[in-house]
């Protein structure tokens, strides 16, 4: 019996045919904006793309290092709890910037927990364009963003899962899937439609089954319907990243309530252990590509080396802090970005932090004050925000 009579190889050939047919009809495909699970990313993307939001002038990018203080400041400033799923602006910055520059800007806070430069790049490439192109991107980074040894690959973050569906990422596959098995996984996904689109197809299948079961076996009427909180108790690992509306609040605080806790030292020790220079250079490459993309579209980038505590900085391997700072400075200079180095700034003390890396709302207000003042004094930023600037105006609202 030859290979042509082997049932297995005939099955593989038929599978390739079926796979191609499924690709042609785009079987089970769901829109990138269709978020089966609402996570911080889902809420932010939906809010950003909504028509009501219009075009923001200033977009904040970054991890929780940016998200937490920026949202926290607004809770204090507006004197009300801020719903993290819906509040994506910085009212405080808008007002401070107006005070310094006389210009009213509209902001959008795209800070997301765990956001890496790879994620920030995807946001910039796929979302911050056309009618949603901002004039200025403020990107706050910390050492963790470039040297998290707990992150297997850029594709492992929650933002990547959603953002990668908005466009083609093959040009960056060597950075997204650096290990051979990750690369194989990526290539198999490109080769076989059902594998590459298994998330979409399984979501569609899940919805179909749910809809059928709701008809065949409806949930019995009861006084106590099943809640998400109960589900979390039963399945702590299931849909871990899901955030419900009105579930994650930033609440107003007083200076007395803003206390420091170094509980995340252990976590960061693990994150900084066994520094992988390939991760560092790959994430720097994503940052460079973000800046290139923004520059090509006429968007000015303000890169901030975010303040972190000495305690956290001391956990870094010798020499890495200097390499990190030097890389940021060189990159910002070469790409024409504005650079705000607050990494070890004396303007911040340990009393401005809630833990070893995150500023609390008081520290956040200090950060936004400095940013508003510096941005207002930066002619490149002001020029980008100027609607009469001819070199930029031609790009306003236009696709690249």
């Amino acid at each position: 019996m030859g290979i042509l009579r082997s049932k297995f190889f005939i099955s593989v050939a038929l599978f390739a045919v079926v796979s191609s047919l499924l690709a042609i009809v785009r079987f089970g495909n769901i829109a990138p904006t269709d978020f089966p699970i609402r996570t911080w990313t889902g809420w932010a993307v939906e809010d950003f793309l909504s028509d009501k939001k219009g075009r923001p002038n200033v977009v904040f990018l970054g991890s929780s290092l940016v998200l937490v203080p920026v949202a926290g400041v607004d809770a204090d400033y507006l004197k009300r709890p801020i719903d993290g799923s819906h509040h994506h602006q910085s009212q405080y910055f808008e007002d401070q910037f107006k005070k310094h520059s006389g210009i009213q800007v509209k902001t959008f806070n795209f800070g997301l927990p765990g956001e890496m430069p790879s994620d920030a790049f995807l946001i910039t490439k796929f979302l911050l364009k056309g009618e949603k192109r901002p004039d200025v991107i403020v990107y706050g980074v910390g050492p963790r963003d470039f040297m998290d040894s707990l992150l297997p690959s850029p594709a492992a973050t929650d933002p990547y899962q959603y953002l990668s569906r908005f466009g083609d990422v093959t040009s960056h596959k060597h950075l997204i899937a650096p290990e051979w098995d990750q690369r194989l996984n990526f290539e198999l996904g490109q080769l076989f439609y059902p594998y590459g689109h298994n998330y979409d197809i399984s979501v569609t299948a899940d919805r179909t089954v749910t809809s059928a079961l709701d008809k065949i076996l409806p949930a019995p009427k009861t006084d106590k319907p099943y809640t998400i909180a109960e589900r979390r108790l039963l399945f702590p690992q299931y849909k871990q990243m899901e955030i419900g509306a009105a579930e994650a609040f930033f609440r107003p605080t007083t200076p007395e309530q803003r206390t420091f806790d170094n509980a995340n030292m252990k976590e960061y020790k693990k994150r900084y252990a066994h520094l992988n220079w390939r991760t560092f250079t790959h994430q720097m490459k994503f940052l460079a590509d973000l800046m290139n993309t923004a520059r090509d579209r006429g968007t000015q980038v303000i890169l901030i080396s975010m303040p972190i505590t000495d305690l956290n900085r001391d956990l870094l391997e010798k020499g890495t802090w200097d390499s990190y700072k030097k890389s940021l400075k060189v990159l910002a200079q070469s790409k024409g970005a504005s650079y705000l180095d607050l990494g070890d700034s004396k303007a911040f003390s340990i009393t401005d932090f809630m833990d070893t890396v995150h500023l609390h709302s008081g520290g956040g207000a200090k950060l936004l004050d400095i940013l508003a003042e510096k941005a207002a004094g930066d002619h490149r930023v002001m020029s980008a925000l100027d609607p009469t600037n001819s070199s930029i105006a031609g790009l306003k609202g236009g696709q690249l």
Partner: protein
Amino acid sequence: MLFNSLQYLVFLPTVFLLFWLTPHRFRVPLLLVASYVFYMSWRPIYGILIFGLTLANFLLVPFIEKAVEQKNKKLILGFTVALNLIVLGIFKYAYFTMDAVKSTLGVVGIDWSAPHLHIILPLGISFFVFEFIHYAIEVYRGKPVVKNFLDFALFPSFFPTQIAGPIKRYQDFVPQLHIPVKFKWEYVDEGMQLILMGLAKKVLIADNLALVVQAGFTHPEQFSSLDMWMITYAFAFQIFFDFAGYTDIARGSSLLFGYKVPINFNLPYIASNVSDFWRRWHISLSTWLRDYLFIPLGGSRGGKWLTYRNLFITMALGGLWHGAAFHFLAWGAYQGIVLIIHREYEAAMQKIGVHEKLLQSKVYHWASVVFTFHVVCIGWVFFRADDMKIAGQVLTKLFEVPTALMHFSASQLAVLQIRDPIIFPALVLILPTLMVSTFVVNWLNNKKFYQSPPWAVQVTVMVALMCLLTIFTPDSSPRFIYFQF
């Protein structure tokens, strides 16, 4: 390296190609290297453990054969078995023993703080230690030793069966290594069919049921009695499809090299009594326990009570083999007790003289199948529970069922209330389907369907499985349950 991983997707075809391109005399060394690569990909240091035990057994067991006097043979056998058991004991039962000692001392008022030994259980140790013991006992019983070290080394380390069996017999396995087999496409067809079926059992069925089981056995207080019965049924099918899936992949992987390893399951849930169940469930372990524990203890030779004692000890130790915890011991003891009760029941029925008539009745047979399934399911509660406390809570829930049935309403069922994940309400349809499918498979077996299934059916099934597996295989599927043993 997991069978359901991308690493294995590369590893298996690579070894397969090298194997068939290599001359016959180099194939055993090739498989040996591949098997050590497979084992050491998890924790390289444990390669030394399996190699050390292999070398020790290879050097010691020939002394059993050479010894002239029976007394000396027994002595060397005892030493060899003890050595294997001590290694197993250190790695698997050290914490369990220390906990037991601590609890005992606590009863008499002594507070002993047990040292932390930093021991990580080596994968597959229970399986390869049992293979070594089998080898030593068989040589003691007069079977020949394996003269070639490479052949012997491949016997416990053969990668398809290395981590979770089936527990092989060296008389069946080693001679296959000497047959200069030529490549046949049938090996690929049959092997890959088994691998695909195994993956489907694991990924599509067992892993989905695992969600329900995990919730039920972590928070039994959240579920009603009827829910807990469904969750217990779900575990019965989860563990079957998980382990049978693993075995299929192991057998399929072996077949790609032209080697056959024993089957482990024969439709266990159509067993009509618990003895029958143990002839169908984890066959390679149950026959090992019979041959190397039950029979050496005296088997059925010493009268009723000694037989029952031997049965109980065998099953209790069999339970403990699964894991160093009281709930596994309780599961084994439960199996021993139900086997004894079954023997007593059969004897009583024979005495009354109605047994033959009843056996011939189909109603009795199917009622026995249903009853046996439930007896087995109650046992699974001990097996699945994390500890005896949870097992007690689940069993209490299960036995509340008459009250629940007396005032039944659908609103009692949490499985219908929980709509996300959807596997919960789907359970109401999936469980009967799985139960019925067991009988359908049995019927097809009896019709000899599996001996020569139609070509188109085989191809269609394989294509369908490829599609389903590529779509529904999650990024990280849980490990096979039997990997922990």
